[in-house]
């Protein structure tokens, strides 16, 4: 089970990392917020893994007990079932929150919809109006 959870962890993309351009304060804000949610999420995830391993341990113990008392196996004990379900919920929650926001995959969503192509700067030519009407701006590199 934890394998599939790990897979879903990988499938998520971190959108916060793609924030390249924003003022320094927002960057620190984002980082701060991410760290907070990451801290909480990873603690919960760790708890989930702990509960799962405890469930495994009690299953082994229960089987040993069955062997000693020579009883038939009818089903897992209730505490193991509850632990497995709890671990599942915790791990899932951690997997969904730790790795950041979800990004849209629809081609027509605002983040993905291409509205203009970049200017083909590699092929830029300088024959345009500035050649005749020079810029009304006295600019200079002072050093």
């Amino acid at each position, binding site marked *: 089970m934890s394998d599939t959870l790990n897979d879903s962890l990988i499938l998520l993309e971190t959108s916060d990392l793609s924030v390249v351009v924003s003022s320094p304060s927002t960057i620190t804000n984002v980082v701060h917020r991410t760290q907070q949610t990451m801290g909480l999420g990873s603690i919960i995830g760790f708890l989930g893994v702990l509960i799962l391993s405890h469930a495994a341990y009690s299953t082994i113990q229960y089987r040993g007990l069955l062997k000693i008392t020579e009883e038939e196996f009818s089903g897992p004990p209730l505490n193991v079932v509850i632990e497995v379900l709890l671990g599942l919920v915790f791990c899932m929650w951690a997997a969904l929150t730790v790795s950041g926001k979800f990004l849209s995959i629809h*081609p*027509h969503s605002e*983040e993905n*919809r*291409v509205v203009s192509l970049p200017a083909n700067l590699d092929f830029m030519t300088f024959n345009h109006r500035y050649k005749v009407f020079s*810029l009304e701006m006295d600019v200079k590199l002072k050093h």
Partner: protein
Amino acid sequence: MVTKTEETQLNRLENQVDNGGGGAWEYLCLVRKLRVRRSEKVLKHGLSILNDPKQRSSLGPDEWTLYEQVAVAAMDCQCLDVAKDCTKVLRKRFPESKRVGRLEAMLLEAKGSWELAEKAYTSLLEDNPLDQAIHKRRVAMAKAQGNISVAIDWLNKYLEIFMADHDAWRELAEIYVSLQMYKQAAFCYEELILSQPTVPLYHLAYADVLYTLGGLENLQIAKKYYASTVDLTGGKNTRALFGICLCTSAITQLTKGKNKEDKEGSQLQSLAAKVLEKDYKQKAPDKLPQLTTALKSLTLSS
């Protein structure tokens, strides 16, 4: 590619910078990342950073990128003194660099001394015959001098080696369109759609070219590509919606006598027209009467 969110972010930052709200460096970064041509603004705001020693030193190694950006912007604005100064500073810092060599050759280009620039590019190519940027500069130079056929030749030769360069395919397509060689342009756009199938603007440009070529078969394909543009943009591309209407009316005009099938086609047109009317009502209510008369004339003529 510039997406909708990036566009709004750019406009917001541009407004902020123009009104003196700060954030010039972020604006310049975004301009560089999106590769948009805002030379005048880059020159103004970039120079204000470069002329302020405190701000400049806080950039760290990004300072040199800014020098390059400002140099190119200055060439684009014909402020050759600034471009020269920036290039000099870069040459002093990177005495052996090929990239600065390219910048110097571009400066010669901006001055209009084509022979010197050509010589500089040739010597740079001798050192590294696979430098894509310099090959592209030579094509651009041929275009700037008006030798369009030479530019096409070079571009074709370049594309034989670097087939995956979609910018070059786009440039070639645009040159062909400017010469009204639509069949060749259509081939280039097909290549672009193959390499980047999710960019609606290539579908749109291909459909435009096919519509211009005319003929029943081309019109039908054009309609399909307009429809795929609508699909990829979620119906937010006005040009594609108009394209569907025009294509449908042109097709019905061509198949007037035969009068078969085409139920689905007219439905597509009425849907596109509906969306257009809704958009106009929302964004430009005063243009709505013009739109309705135009759409009416299209359906009447069919």
